[in-house]
């Protein structure tokens, strides 16, 4: 999956979190690592972000999960894309 597709699907996931659509959230979260394959890089910043996302999911903190995706994870993906060009 390319970075543009990943970002679109992550934005959809964040939106579902904000709207309380838990079934969509559960289905997409189970594919999170698949969504990030090819985009994610090694490094503390990535790891910290993914840990926050998984912790938020486990504690049903879905609005924070949406925040982490939109305001931390996606900007990091966009940064990687720019650097890779």
């Amino acid at each position, binding site marked *: 999956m390319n970075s543009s597709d990943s970002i679109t699907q992550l934005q959809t996931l964040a939106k579902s979190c904000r709207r*309380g659509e838990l079934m969509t959230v559960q289905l997409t979260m189970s594919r999170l690592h698949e969504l990030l394959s090819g985009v994610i890089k090694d490094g503390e910043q990535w790891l910290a972000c993914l840990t926050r996302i998984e912790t938020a999911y486990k504690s049903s*903190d879905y609005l924070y999960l949406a925040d982490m995706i939109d305001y931390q994870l996606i900007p990091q993906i966009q940064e990687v894309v720019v650097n890779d060009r």
Partner: protein
Amino acid sequence: MFASQFEGGKVQQTCELGINERLFEKNATLVVSRWPDIWAQIESSSEPRTLEVDTTHTLPALIIDNIHLHSCFDTHTEVSQQLEHLKNVKGDIYCYGVGSGELVRELLRRYPDSTIHVVIFNPFVFKVQLAMYHWSDWLQDEAIQLHSAAVVNDVNTPWVVAPAELALANESSQPLVDKLQLELNTDEINRQYVKNVSPNIDANLPLIDKLPKLSQLLADAGNRFIGNKEVTVIGAGPSLDNVDLSCLNDQLIVCVDAAFKSLIHRGIEPHFVVAIDFSEKVERFLTVEQSHHSTLIAFPTLCPSVIERWQGPCYLAFSHHPVFHGLNFGEQDILFNAGSVIHPAIDLAVKLSNGTVNLIGADFCFEGTKTHAAASDASFADDQTLIQRKNARGELVNTCASLLSYALDVERYIQSQPDVNFVSVSQQGLSLAGVRYE
């Protein structure tokens, strides 16, 4: 005095976190004057909740039991996305939960002629919010009406949800939370359903014109037994294993696909088997070799090989779902279906019964880790998140979102059949409104 309001929620912490006494008094005064009954619930509420304020991002956000009540970055985008659930606004609007309060303000801005019914799910959570947010503007607005979720029986439309508060609801608000969650999941449920069943419907197209349909069964059966007997619907829930089935003499038996093998193992050949399952694994519990004496009521969503190999009579049934639009069937061929095979099985039973429908194995919950009756060979996906609800005995049991949604749709169906007595012989399953337990 102010601190005593938060005895359940770690008083010292709330004060350190900047929860504001003057703000609380200002908001509370408005609630007291406009909704004294709700204030009484708020004032007496006390729960051992963990309260924090997240100040590490752009906006401070209240966190209760590790759940943020709204975005720490952009409440405008958050509210805009939540408002997309609003459809066909004409008159009153129902706002379930409050969040930061921005959702209510935006509703007032966008729909100045509407009454906004704000529903609160937990008086203690609301009390904390009153001490945290400047809400006097909307609390004094004449267009706002405040309600407690505990006395709201169903989801009114058009609706919008601040979802964090669903996770913090108190026990008496839980029935409404479950109904809202079903509404929130409906689009996804439909997406999955269409994706899963479309290939089977296509494969079954040649059979749709060949096979007789439900209307023909009801016409053929009319003089023989419709309305003469009690009908028992047998689901595949774990409680089926604990019920003495000798009581089924002289009753018509309608079973769901996943219960067929269990009944055959116990020497019972059901009169009717209702089947909708799209997956090939249905062949494991719809054992066609033993199907000579049972009539299959098949939806075109059923795995084609089962329909082709069934030994007894077979009739096709449909539902109102758009996935069946364009197929050749009439109104009398339709059975109620909201996602579970138990729905059309109950509807068929009502159509055949003398006014009493018995339910066995219609549990909508698990027995420990057991999801189905012993021989059914059906199972749920392992990734289902477990939820706890009370069964008809008042015991907490495990269930999951899909089973809860099926149960709610059974309740709605039962409510639409005031002339039928619904009786369950087991109290092991979830308590269903409208069912008498024996």
